[in-house]
């Protein structure tokens, strides 16, 4: 590492008079991998958006290569050598992968075949298995992320900012990604890496900066940090004993069998899948992207439909079910809490109270033809208190909340329906550690109250810490079951891959 390529001095950004970041000092050395961590709302995204030219500073300085700059657009920042890979991807869905890669670099005459060949060679050099001719809309979340990363690398940026780059990647893809980041470092590119997965930050970075409530807390070399110190700096309290404490000390015994899935088929994702879910337990479901775990539970909750011919059986409390829409599943006490909260989880311009009330209306259906404002307020207030949603008031739009609080609203929207079978799909993706602990406590409480809880997660420490039994999916079906006592990360990963 040499001198700083990028510096921020006393950086402050105000939104409506409130500081999102307040007097932050930050420096990035050439060829350095710098992890930026903090709870949701800590100011990480704002800080990086300033660097990427998405927003400008209210006060303070930004220097690139010792020269004071103030990029006003992402294009200006890119011309200065700063590129950002956003958490929500910025690709054009209707264009192909190759067209997205070369977007903004088109020549007067473009030979499509030439673009595809160049894109193919470039993606192969990065070891990314993405077809350049595929339309982006057809790609899954992980592959879209790969295209975003490839585009930043293609632009030969001197500084690349990754905002939660691994959230939707499989463990194998993460390994490729880390290799890529190390390769970028070898080439002298500096990388800023935002992640809620602290293990990743500790694994890959040279230095770590922790932000809290928009302020700089600490910057130090990674070797001087451990997990507990990072968490303590992030939240100002010690969560190491409550968050991912390893094996569960208390494993709940199975109660009544609530859900039985027998030989379920939905081509091409779910292949002859069978499993059971029991009351009073947390059933963890682990699998790589494409293993059919989400699709299986979307079929159970009526969001997807199984094969018309010989699609298998789904039995809820002894009664065979086949839902054509989610509404009857909700009425039968099934709650599916989506992994993609921004698209499927809430109405972003509606208030907290209205969003929660929508959940209740979904349950009541035709029995509640009129929307009662007072009832909506009462229901909203109750769930804001129960789930400790941090907001100025119930009238706040959900889009204005942090990721953790948005997730709590999505959960409240389902729990207000008083379900008996609750399916959490990636419940803590993109959620800060403080909210993760609260969501985990909620999952435990639901199981203790006798509900059947399913928790789908790609994050092994979470699966290990929360589940009473762990199902591993591979190639469209459950291939292995572990009790909480016998499970290890190696065993689970082995079952998921081989």
């Amino acid at each position, binding site marked *: 590492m040499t001198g700083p390529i990028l510096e921020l001095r006393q950086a402050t950004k105000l939104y409506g008079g409130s500081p999102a970041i307040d007097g932050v000092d930050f420096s990035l050395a050439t060829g350095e991998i710098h992890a930026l961590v903090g709870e949701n709302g800590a100011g990480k995204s704002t800080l990086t958006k300033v660097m990427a030219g998405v927003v400008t500073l209210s006060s303070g300085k930004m220097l690139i290569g010792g020269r004071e700059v103030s990029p006003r657009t992402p294009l200006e920042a890119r011309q200065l050598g700063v590129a950002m890979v956003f958490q929500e991807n910025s690709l054009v869905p209707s264009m192909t992968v190759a067209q997205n890669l070369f977007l903004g670099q088109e020549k007067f005459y473009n030979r499509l075949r030439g673009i595809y060949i160049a894109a193919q060679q470039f993606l192969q050099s990065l070891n990314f298995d993405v077809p350049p001719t595929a339309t982006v809309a057809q790609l899954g979340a992980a592959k879209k992320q790969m295209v975003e990363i490839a585009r930043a690398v293609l632009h030969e940026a001197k500084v690349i900012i990754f905002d939660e780059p691994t959230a939707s990647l499989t463990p194998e893809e993460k390994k490729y990604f880390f290799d890529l980041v190390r390769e970028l470092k070898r080439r002298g590119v500096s990388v800023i890496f935002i992640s809620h997965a602290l293990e990743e930050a500790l694994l890959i970075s040279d230095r770590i900066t922790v932000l809290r409530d928009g302020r700089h807390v600490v910057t130090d070399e990674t070797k001087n940090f451990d997990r507990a110190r990072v968490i303590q700096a992030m939240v100002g309290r010690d969560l190491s004993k409550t968050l991912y404490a390893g094996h569960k000390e208390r494993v709940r*015994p*199975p*109660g*009544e*069998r609530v859900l*039985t899935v*027998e*030989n379920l088929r939905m081509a091409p994702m779910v292949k002859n899948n*069978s*499993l*059971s879910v*029991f009351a009073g337990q947390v059933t963890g479901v682990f699998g790589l992207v494409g293993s059919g775990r989400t699709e299986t539970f979307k079929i159970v909750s009526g969001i997807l439909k199984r094969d*018309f*011919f*010989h*699609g*298998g*059986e789904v*039995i809820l409390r*002894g009664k*065979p079910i*086949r839902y054509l829409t989610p509404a009857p599943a909700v009425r039968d006490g099934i709650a599916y809490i989506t992994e993609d909260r921004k698209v499927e989880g809430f109405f972003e311009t509606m208030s907290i109270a209205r969003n929660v009330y929508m959940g209740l209306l979904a349950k009541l259906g035709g029995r509640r033809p009129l929307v009662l404002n007072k009832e909506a307020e009462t229901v909203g207030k109750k769930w804001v208190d129960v789930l400790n949603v941090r907001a100025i008031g119930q009238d706040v739009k959900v889009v204005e909340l942090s990721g953790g609080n948005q997730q709590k609203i999505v959960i409240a929207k389902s729990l207000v329906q008083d379900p008996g079978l609750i399916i959490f799909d990636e419940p803590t993706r993109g959620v800060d550690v403080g909210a993760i602990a609260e969501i985990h406590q909620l999952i435990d409480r639901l199981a203790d109250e006798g509900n059947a809880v399913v928790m789908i997660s790609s994050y092994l420490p979470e699966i290990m810490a929360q589940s009473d*039994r762990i*199902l591993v999916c591979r*190639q469209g079906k*459950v291939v292995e*079951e572990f*009790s909480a*006592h*016998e499970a290890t990360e190696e065993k689970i990963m082995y079952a998921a891959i*081989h």
Partner: protein
Amino acid sequence: MIAALRTLSDRLLGRGEASITVPIFDGALKPNQMLERAEVVDRFDEANDIATDGRVLFVADGRRVLRLADGAKTEAAAFDQTVTALCALGDGGLAVALDGREVCIRGGSADGSRSTGPVHAPFHAANAIAVTDGSLRNDGAQWVHDLMGRGSTGRLILLDPRSGEVREAVRGFAYAFGAGAFENGCLVSESWRHRLVAVGPEGRRRPVLDRLPVYPSRLAAATGGGFWLTAFTARTQLVEFVLRENAYRRRMMSEIAPEHWIAPRLRSGESYLEPMQGAHLRTMGVLKPWAPPRSYGLVVRLSAAGTPVYSLHSRVDGINHGIVAAAELAGFLYLLAKGPGRLLRLALADIEREAAA
């Protein structure tokens, strides 16, 4: 009319009765190899049942009842018919089912009493008055004929050991195999419907545990409440398919020797002529052939409410298949594996320890 249309559409779409699905061994039924590690106490050629009075173990072997105590095996009683089931009575007597035609009591306050009439074997009396009759059409040795014939003529019979009087409590079971005292009535294992049914005093039936991946056999009381449920073989999609293909099934039964039917067995792997269900699975990137088991061994520990707590298995590559009876004695669980003709023994403490791991 509607039922007929539903059956037709189910057959066309592969739904309902025609879905040919089999529940998975998971949760408390997650497979292990505990039965394969059991100690082999003795071997019998024609053993049908075991029972205990809390001091010694009785084994029904052919036409004899053997007493096993202190490592010695002595003859407790001999009959001129095959002993198909046993039950130790609370007063020191022993109820013995003879060839599915009568129940005879030896010892105790009702010594010498004989009940004839509608009583068929196999039977198991939980508290000396509840008797199950698997099938009116087929005797115990022909259980596979009853399964493939889709029999549902099983009964629960109440027997007065003193007077020998019998009363039919419930009929229409698809092979009633085992029974145990449950709440204020009986718990009956209904093998061909893969479930346990609670029968109330007035004869009302209520499923307690259904959709089992096995054919349940007998129930035995467990220390601390609950039961040991034994199962003599596992369900497979191939057998479920054959059971729904009536023309094929009838022709198979009339033209092929029973040992080569596509049907569950108490033991398997003895002849290359045995039917197999071909399957495959991919391990380490290599496609490997695999066949579901034709025979299986399973014992399930049930809670007092009838919920599975944990289970002991002998899997496809095991030997101790066809478990038909269980009994607890002196800190051990004794099991009769009818497939290989073995009396097995496992220490209860070891079972508990392994199940908790």
